[in-house]
């Protein structure tokens, strides 16, 4: 078991290590007063960016500005406008929202506090002259490309920059005035809107110009051009102001220009401004409608078994007025009536005050009672401010028929041959859930809620099923939020009553008395069997004993860069909520966790402590077990150009307080044997993990290196005192990981990885394995196609507990390509081959080859 856990840990680390990240060539220096082109893309994995943004500011500015990046195949590009590059230093970071609903950043850690830096170098002194002729040299480079005939004019007519460097905030408001503030003979037109190089949406764009000297121009000669096309007829011209609001401008750069002649028609005046219309500025949540569909076709050949799997799905969301609607479906060919459902679907209508969800809902009412259980049915809520209510009804388990093995003939009894039938597989009863949670208070500062949940199996829904159950859980929850959410107090409680077998129905009051002797119910259970069936399998029959109680009280404090969480919880041995079956029972204790941030979030420290008593209720003969866990971790993210470091140490002890070996006697025939019973448990497990990551340039290539070391050590404090026949519980393991990702060009990336693991279990079994991997991806055909290939070889050797040799080698090949048909639209084909060569003593299969071929398609709307 421990070995499996270690292997899983290893693969988890490997997977974590190879997950998608944001690839960007950091820009270390750029010229002042010029646009800075930022390019980035998502590397590895199957994830795709659906939105990418660059945030930037000068070091002394209080907040960041941002621009949306545009997708060009797999590459995302964006320009930090020249108006923000007056200073000597610019800080920036990039964020990307991926289609798997995660967010990645560059720099990878703490980007807000430790952004990347660009040193802005002064332009040549002779280019700072202020004559109109030289303005062409010093003018900020306009975002490419400006379409239409006005392109040349646009470059010439851009105004010189302000002389003094400014913060982005100043420049946001000042530069537009300064840049578009006319000079000399051009001072007649002052462009009020948009800001130079502003990125905006089409419906939020107005071109506004103020006429500074109305006597100077002939209003009949005013002409307004949009990308070279005369749009004067769409403009509104009055004495002092001219406005034009073009409709449905396409995404991209656009140039507005205004021109007019003086009253004698001997001179001309003009001014212009460039603007970028970006349709992606709308966040998905504010879009009227968005949708996503995908299909995934796989052919898997594992252990000589070939299976074709089809998966398809989609989602959509939008809003109509104040009502949001959304839907999601996931269909797979693996869904079968003989198992629990794998398909998922739901449709939801939500508003601020009320909402309804049909299909698969995942209500969360109270951590102890109902928290994320899938319910196929209907869920609704009503939020009226002080009074709110949530309710859900539906099926949690599908009825699945059990199966029998028949045919074992017994000897003839009373002249008949009896055929025994054995249940080969137990079926499941259909299970339905109803829950309601009225609450008082909005939850912003205070909320008091009461949850009632009833879950019941339908005994008639299947044959050969396990025991059908009936369960009711009730409990309150309270939340108090103080000091601007810096203090959050939370308390939950619940009590349950469960009948573990309702197949025989309810007992009468007298039958209960006869069964339990000292239990006299104040009502007759037969009268209330539609609410809960009470019989001899009901626990607790006497609620006053408290074993079916659960509670959890905690406080969270957020002060002085410390996030402190402390609480106490107790879950009784008989507490049972079928609406939350994952909860650990018969345990109580204290938990404490503190996370501290220091040095502008460069240093994170975390300490946590848990002390639980398992089996505290002593309902059985097993002793109480004391569980203590300490966690210490320290992570250092010094910033760009420096390695990041981290270390975590976890110690977990388990002690049941038993110090002596018990003995018992067994007699068989005339012989008596003494049986030794060793129930002593006193173990300590220490897990240490250290890592270092470093992003640097070498030979002009972007390098990303990561080194991990993980070790686990379990010691049994009674190991040396135990009987020699007792299997040792000691275990030690260590894993070393190394990976290097190199970006040779924006189109070519390679990954080199190496791992070594060794395990020693009880000095009997020693097991080692080594992994070497190499991968590459390459973008070609106008960045429309990305081809990728990967090779990984894993070799193992060692001995098992039974001292048989283990010798195993796995070679993994992956090759494929993704074609980006258009933004948000791609198709991918890949093949995976696993060649296994097993020379272990235990191997009975021999060498074999598994394969997975996959065709994936998706489109966003």
């Amino acid at each position, binding site marked *: 078991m421990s070995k499996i856990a270690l292997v899983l840990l290893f693969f988890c680390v490997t997977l974590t290590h190879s997950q998608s990240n944001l690839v960007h060539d950091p820009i270390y220096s750029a010229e002042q007063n010029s646009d800075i082109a930022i390019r980035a893309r998502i590397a590895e994995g199957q994830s795709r960016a659906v939105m990418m943004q660059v945030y930037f500011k000068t070091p002394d500015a209080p907040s960041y500005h*941002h621009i949306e990046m545009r997708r060009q195949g797999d590459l995302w590009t964006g320009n930090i406008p020249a108006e923000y590059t007056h200073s000597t230093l610019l800080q920036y970071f990039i964020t990307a929202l991926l289609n798997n609903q995660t967010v990645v950043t560059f720099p990878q850690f703490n980007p807000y506090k430790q952004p990347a830096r660009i040193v802005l170098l002064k332009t040549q002194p002779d280019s700072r002259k202020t004559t109109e002729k030289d303005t062409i040299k010093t003018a900020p480079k306009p975002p490419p490309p400006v379409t239409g005939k006005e392109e040349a004019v646009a470059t010439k007519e851009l105004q010189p920059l302000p002389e003094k460097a400014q913060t982005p905030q100043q420049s946001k408001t000042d530069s537009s005035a300064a840049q578009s503030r006319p000079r000399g003979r051009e001072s007649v037109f002052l462009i*009020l809107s948009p800001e130079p190089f502003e990125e905006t949406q089409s419906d*939020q764009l107005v071109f506004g110009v*103020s006429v500074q000297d109305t006597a100077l121009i002939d209003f009949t000669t005013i002409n307004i051009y949009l990308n070279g096309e005369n749009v004067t007829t769409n403009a509104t011209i009055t004495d002092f102001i001219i*406005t034009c609001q073009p409709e449905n401008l396409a995404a991209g750069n656009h140039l507005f220009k205004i021109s007019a002649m003086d009253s004698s028609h001997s001179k001309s005046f003009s001014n212009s401004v460039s603007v970028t219309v970006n349709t992606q500025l709308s966040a998905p949540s504010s879009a009227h409608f968005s949708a996503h569909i995908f299909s995934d076709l796989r052919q898997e050949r594992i252990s000589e078994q070939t299976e074709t799997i089809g998966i398809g799905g989609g989602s959509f969301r939008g809003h109509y007025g104040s009502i949001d609607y959304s839907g999601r479906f996931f269909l797979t060919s693996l869904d079968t009536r003989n198992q629990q459902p794998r398909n998922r679907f739901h449709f939801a209508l939500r508003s601020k005050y009320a909402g309804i969800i049909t299909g698969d809902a995942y209500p969360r009412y109270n951590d102890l009672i109902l928290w*994320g259980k899938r319910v196929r049915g209907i869920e609704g809520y009503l939020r009226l401010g002080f009074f709110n209510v949530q309710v859900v009804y539906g099926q949690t388990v599908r009825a699945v028929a059990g199966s029998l093995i028949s045919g074992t003939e017994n000897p003839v009894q009373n002249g008949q041959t009896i055929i025994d039938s054995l249940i080969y597989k137990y079926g499941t009863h259909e299970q339905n859930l109803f829950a309601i949670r009225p609450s008082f208070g909005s939850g912003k500062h205070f909320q008091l809620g009461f949850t009632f949940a009833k879950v019941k199996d339908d005994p008639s829904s299947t044959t050969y099923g396990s025991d059908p159950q009936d369960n009711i859980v009730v409990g309150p929850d309270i939340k108090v939020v103080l000091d601007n959410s810096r203090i959050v107090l939370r308390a939950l409680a619940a009590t349950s009553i469960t009948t573990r077998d309702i197949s025989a129905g309810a007992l009468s009051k007298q039958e209960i008395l006869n069964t339990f002797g000292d239990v006299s119910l104040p009502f007759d259970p037969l009268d209330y069997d539609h609410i809960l069936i009470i019989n001899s399998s009901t626990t607790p029959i006497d609620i006053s004993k408290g074993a079916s109680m659960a509670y959890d009280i905690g406080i969270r404090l957020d002060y002085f860069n410390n996030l402190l969480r402390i609480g106490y919880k107790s879950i009784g041995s008989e507490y049972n909520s079928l609406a939350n079956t994952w909860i650990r029972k018969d345990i109580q204790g204290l938990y404490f966790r503190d996370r501290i941030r220091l040095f502008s979030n460069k240093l994170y420290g975390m300490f946590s402590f848990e002390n639980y008593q398992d089996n505290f209720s002593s309902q059985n003969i097993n002793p109480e077990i004391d569980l203590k866990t300490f966690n210490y971790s320290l992570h250092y993210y010094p910033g760009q150009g420096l390695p990041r470091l981290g270390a975590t140490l976890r110690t977990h002890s388990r002690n049941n307080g038993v110090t002596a070996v018990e003995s018992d006697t067994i007699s068989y025939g005339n012989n008596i044997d003494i049986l030794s019973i060793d129930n002593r448990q006193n173990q300590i497990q220490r897990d240490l993990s250290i890592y270092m990551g470093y992003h640097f340039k070498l030979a002009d290539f972007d390098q990303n290196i990561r080194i991990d070391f993980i070790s686990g050590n379990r010691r049994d404090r009674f190991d040396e005192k135990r009987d020699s026949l007792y299997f040792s519980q000691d275990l030690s393991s260590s894993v070393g990981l190394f990976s290097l990702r190199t970006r040779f060009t924006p189109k070519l990336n390679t990954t080199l990885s190496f791992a070594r693991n060794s395990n020693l279990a009880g000095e009997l079994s020693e097991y080692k394995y080594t992994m070497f991997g190499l991968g590459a991806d390459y973008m070609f055909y106008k960045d429309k196609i990305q081809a990728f290939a990967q090779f990984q070889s894993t070799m193992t050797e060692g001995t098992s507990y039974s001292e048989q040799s283990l010798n195993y080698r796995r070679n993994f090949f992956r090759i494929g390509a993704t074609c980006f048909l258009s933004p948000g639209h791609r198709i991918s084909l890949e093949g995976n081959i696993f060649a296994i060569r097993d020379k272990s003593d235990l191997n009975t299969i021999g060498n074999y080859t598994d394969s997975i071929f996959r065709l994936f398609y998706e489109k966003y709307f």
Partner: protein
Amino acid sequence: MKCCVLCFLICISFLATAHSRDEIALVIKCDGNAQYRQSEQDWNKLGIGKRLEDGDEIKTGKGAQVTIVFIDDKSLMKIREESQLILHGKREEKNIIKKIGQQLGQLWFKVTNQETQLQVETPSGIAAVKGTEFYSLVDDLGNTTIIGISGIVELFNSLGRVQVGPSQTGKAGKKSIPVVEKSEESMDWGTDSGTLNELEIEFENENGEKKTLKLQYK
């Protein structure tokens, strides 16, 4: 016939008078529910591109934010949610003398021209401004708060006057003398690029458990 001509001329004169009010500002950004009206008439929806005239009254609803630019010198004014004000402007040659009657809410100003005059009149005081950046806040009781960012704002009422500089806060009540103190908390919504947007990302694991991450950005 003469009567008809006279009536026609009167109507023309009236219409001419009605449209002779100075255009003083332009709405360049408008998020959320904002309305305007002229001379106690019905409220109308305010939108991007609306030209504002002398005497226009503006009010903003919850979550709204409006940015307007004055057409003479490109001075900016941002109006935050749940605010109400009247715009007054009088053209003098190339400049417009601006008087903002702030009844309620929060305003941010970036006055770019040192030569033009801008005053914010509140129920409890007057803030006189030349070439500066500041916030003006008026609460339900009519109390005025001026937060200086750059330059000097003179805050006065019938009981006295103070000068509010950068990182200083001036306060005035209807019956209290204006005072100035060091700003305890700075504001920055005026220089933000836009209103707060919210991006909801819904996470769902294999068990179908869902969590929604709300990213707020500007």
